[in-house]
């Protein structure tokens, strides 16, 4: 009964001819389905437009920047003094700062993160794993500005206890804190990769008389290499893009040095520094943050491509 009345209304509303009611019902239902599918499709397209927007905007503003600054100067000048009277536009100091803090971070996070992942996957009991994994997630959720506080007011003073000459603003403290920050990412992804190695492989290894450590290092880790490399790549892109820790604790002075005990600025810290000041739309300072932003995006893109290559290169299928 209800079906029939719906059909009647559909037919009269559409002004359709005397076709049987059920087809009208199906048509209206199809129209609704189409509408919803189109809507959902449009929403998915919006995610693509974000990428297009990011790349387009960075290229557009960078093009304006490079109209005034020759690309050669940008890549070879060893000074970045955009806030001063005499302006130099060399990206090298910012790149050096980014690389120094990221390297310090990785030197800490890669061994510790891998060790923790091997322990969690191969040694820890089920209960320990189920307790520790959520805690690592909590650690990854702490706001980065709080880590900035940690670097400036807790880690650097602690380091000064051992190294009395260390200035209050330096790249070592923030680098170490970024390292601690990315440990959960590396541990979590690497542990997932090791857990997905089939149990038979471990059992085969144990049956040959290998110990846990031998099995972990010679069977599980080689089998999970592609996932472990993916974990490192994730850590690297986090470290390179990290902003607040460096902006708070490294001193915000672009400094062309490879010495982590000196103050410095990264690409991200420079963007924050410019954005904190008065930033007239269309000025060279405004355009410069898009130009260095483009460099940052290209760097993370490069790491992602390398990660993809490594994953396919080391992939083992079982």
């Amino acid at each position, binding site marked *: 009964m209800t079906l029939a009345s719906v059909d009647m209304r559909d037919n009269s509303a559409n002004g359709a001819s005397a076709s049987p009611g059920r087809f009208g019902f199906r048509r209206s239902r199809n129209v609704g389905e189409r509408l919803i599918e189109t809507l959902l499709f449009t929403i998915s397209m919006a995610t693509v437009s*974000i990428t297009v927007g990011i790349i387009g905007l960075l290229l557009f503003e960078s093009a304006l920047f490079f109209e005034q600054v020759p690309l050669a100067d940008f890549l070879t000048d060893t000074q970045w003094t955009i806030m001063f009277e005499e302006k130099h536009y060399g990206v090298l100091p910012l790149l050096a700062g980014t690389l120094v803090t990221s390297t310090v971070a990785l030197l800490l996070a890669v061994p510790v993160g891998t060790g923790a992942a091997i322990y969690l996957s191969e040694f820890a009991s089920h209960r320990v794993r189920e307790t520790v994994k959520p805690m690592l997630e909590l650690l990854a959720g702490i706001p980065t500005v709080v880590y900035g506080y940690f670097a400036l007011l807790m880690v650097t003073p602690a380091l000064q206890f051992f190294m009395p000459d260390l200035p209050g603003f330096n790249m070592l403290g923030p680098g170490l804190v970024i390292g601690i920050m990315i440990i959960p990412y590396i541990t979590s992804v690497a542990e997932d990769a090791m857990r997905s190695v089939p149990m038979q492989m471990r059992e085969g290894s144990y049956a040959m008389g290998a110990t846990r450590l031998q099995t972990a290092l010679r069977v599980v880790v080689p089998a999970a290499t592609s996932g472990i490399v993916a974990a490192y790549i994730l850590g690297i892109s986090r470290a390179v893009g990290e902003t607040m820790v460096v902006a708070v604790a490294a001193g915000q002075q672009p400094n062309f040095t490879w010495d982590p005990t000196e103050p410095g600025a990264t690409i991200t810290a420079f963007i924050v520094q410019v954005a904190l000041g008065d930033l007239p739309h269309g000025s060279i300072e405004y355009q410069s943050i898009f130009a260095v932003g483009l460099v*940052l995006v290209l760097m993370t893109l490069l790491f992602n491509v390398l990660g993809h290559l490594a994953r396919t290169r080391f992939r083992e299928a079982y």
Partner: protein
Amino acid sequence: MLDTSAIHQLVRRNRQRDAVFAIIGLACMMIGILTLAVLLAGLIDDGARRLNWSFFENFPSRRAARAGILSAIVGSSLVMLITALTAIPLGVGAGIYLEEYARRNWFTALVEINVTNLAGVPSIIYGLLALGLFVYALDFGQSILSAGLTLALMILPVIIVSTREAIRAIPAAIREAGYALGASRWQLVRDHILPYSAGGILTGIIIGLARAIGETAPIITIGALTFIAFLPDAPFTAEFPFISFEWIKSPFTVMPIQMFNWLSRPQAAFQENAAAAGLVLVVMTLVMNGLAIWLRIRFRKRIKW
């Protein structure tokens, strides 16, 4: 007679190495957790004595002892409202489309690669996009609207990925049963897919919002003011039509910006305020992430296919 002492020695040495590594691995694992403990202890030590009611009721002030986080808490709440209203429909919608509607072709692959890459873009780049797009091109200014939309774009990949994972966990038999009974695609999604995946989707939403609430860099990039000693217009008014949208255009401050502002001053008194604000911020994100983890465990236990 076989000499077994060499074998015994080998076994003993390997067992020792095992034990040594177990200790090293445990230490590696504890570094992260101990850091969390030290960080919390440090924040409590420095900031706890500033945490009283007036700290939550006062505006920022030139005098550290009278400064508070009222405008930051209100600002954070309003920005989160915009972020949630934008990111939840977009993220869940895109997730549903990719799992339930999209055909397996090059275009879908492109969208998938794109979402993965967006998740890896540093947050400050979203700030640059927002500066060019929302602040200048669309002329939203340095407002709550700009900040909310910026953070929404940033957490969109998180919500999309968790929506897809939650939907993928539903067995194909459920879909086949629905279609066999004549359900249309949308009926199936509305009556079965969404209810069964709600737990996983909710977890992703909370994790995304927890990330957004602590995010500082993109908000600084759009040029948010740091000294805000007033509240935006109330969203509800006494006169018709009772709802006002003036607040979305209002300048604002949020919790992490307020903390950064205090942190970048040299005086110890302001750094105490920074510690107190940091403590509030950490508790907020820990509670949100804890809730997400609890929800996930609960739903995993309840649903057994």
